[in-house]
């Protein structure tokens, strides 16, 4: 990432953190601005996971209601503001998706595509997304070191919220294989990221 992009990002983080602290004091204008600056991220992430506009809208709605009430629990020393906000939406989307799977289709079958696994026809694929990114440089370099199966499984899980069962169905591989790809992939990712951080 270039110095100017890094500076722009640091400025944005500082601005979002300042807005969050004002929101914790019930500042409505700050909340409105925070929503304006971040909602398109939360919505995009939720929509990719749940795949339905109405549900993604509900997730965004719940996430911001939650932020309004709990902005005071945001700790700037521990996470980036956008990460914190996006985690709220991501985790809600994942919880909801898992709950719906259990409610409606039981455990996903190991053959054929399970319902609900739909990928947008246009736009970057999960692997492209995984390998893209200026800010994501360190993690991108580390992802490059993963074997193809692990790379694809991790991308699908992260961007589309696929469970192990869905990954196995989608990739047409045994569940055990997919689980170990994910497990080993994450462990390798962590070692690689730790080294990158240590090398700085």
């Amino acid at each position, binding site marked *: 990432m*270039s110095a100017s*992009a890094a500076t*722009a990002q640091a400025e*944005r983080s500082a601005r979002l953190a300042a807005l969050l602290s004002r929101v914790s004091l019930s500042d409505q204008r700050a*909340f*409105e601005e925070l*929503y304006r*600056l971040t*909602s*398109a*991220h939360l*919505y*995009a*992430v939720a*929509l*990719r*996971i749940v795949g339905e506009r109405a549900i*993604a*809208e509900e997730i*965004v*709605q719940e996430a*911001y209601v939650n932020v*309004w009430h709990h902005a005071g629990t945001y700790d700037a020393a*521990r*996470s*980036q503001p*956008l*990460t914190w906000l*996006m*985690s709220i939406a*991501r*985790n809600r989307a*994942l*919880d909801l998706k*898992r709950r719906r*799977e259990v409610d409606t289709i039981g455990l996903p079958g190991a053959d054929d595509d399970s319902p609900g696994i739909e990928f947008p026809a246009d736009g*970057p694929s999960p692997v*492209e*997304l995984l*390998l*893209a*990114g*200026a*800010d*994501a*440089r*360190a*993690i*991108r370099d580390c992802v490059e070191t993963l074997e193809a199966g692990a790379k694809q499984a991790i991308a699908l*899980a*992260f*961007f589309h*919220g696929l*469970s*192990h069962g869905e990954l196995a169905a989608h990739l047409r591989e045994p569940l055990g294989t997919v689980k170990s790809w*994910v*497990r080993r992939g*994450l*462990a390798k990712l*962590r070692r690689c990221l730790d080294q990158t951080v240590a090398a700085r």
Partner: protein
Amino acid sequence: MNLSHPDRRERLDRLAAEYALGTSPPLVRKRLAAIARGDRVVADALRQWEERLAPLAAEVPVITPAPRVWARIASRLGIEMRPAPPPPPPAPWWGRLALWRALSIASTVIAVALGIAKFAQPPGPDVAPIVVVLAGSDAKPALIATASRLDRYLTIKPVGNTAPAAGQVFELWALPQASPPKSLGVIPAGGVVRVPLAAPADESLTNIPALAVSLEPPGGSPTGQPTGPVLYSGAVERMF
């Protein structure tokens, strides 16, 4: 399951990684989230993995939710909806930089997402593009202008089916810091098109913080200044 015990660190790390990635089974998700509420070590492990993977989430191209989402949030929280925006000040429109300033953050984000294009190209001294996301007052991207530093043209790509009204054309304007807009020419009709520049893009856009697009009669503005409405604008982002 005392996950914060040192012996269990490795297991905690694995569970936290799968939680952040999203592959944990529903019961494990629920359990971990519940434990994290009362256990700082577990909470930190989850947060650290969320931070590690976060740069990936920032790559997802942004999508603006429908206005009803904000309306519902505001009504649930009893937040007054802001009254209609005040009438525009009498200054010339290019002096009212607030519009593209406000958009520049959104466009930075989109530009980062567009880094995809950058990394898809082979590395070299001139791959880093200049990106301008031209968006309307609803902050929705309408046109995306890109160029490499040495290109003598801007590549303009419409987002969705952005096109001028029948019998009219889009004209592209450079908005210098403190002087009136300079025309960069009419944007040719058709999907992905090029607008030629007199000098390499990096040079042409020196001291040009933003671009804008106005609606003009065929052939472009007869006066040398925008005559029709300014539909889109966006900050010039340099991805290098």
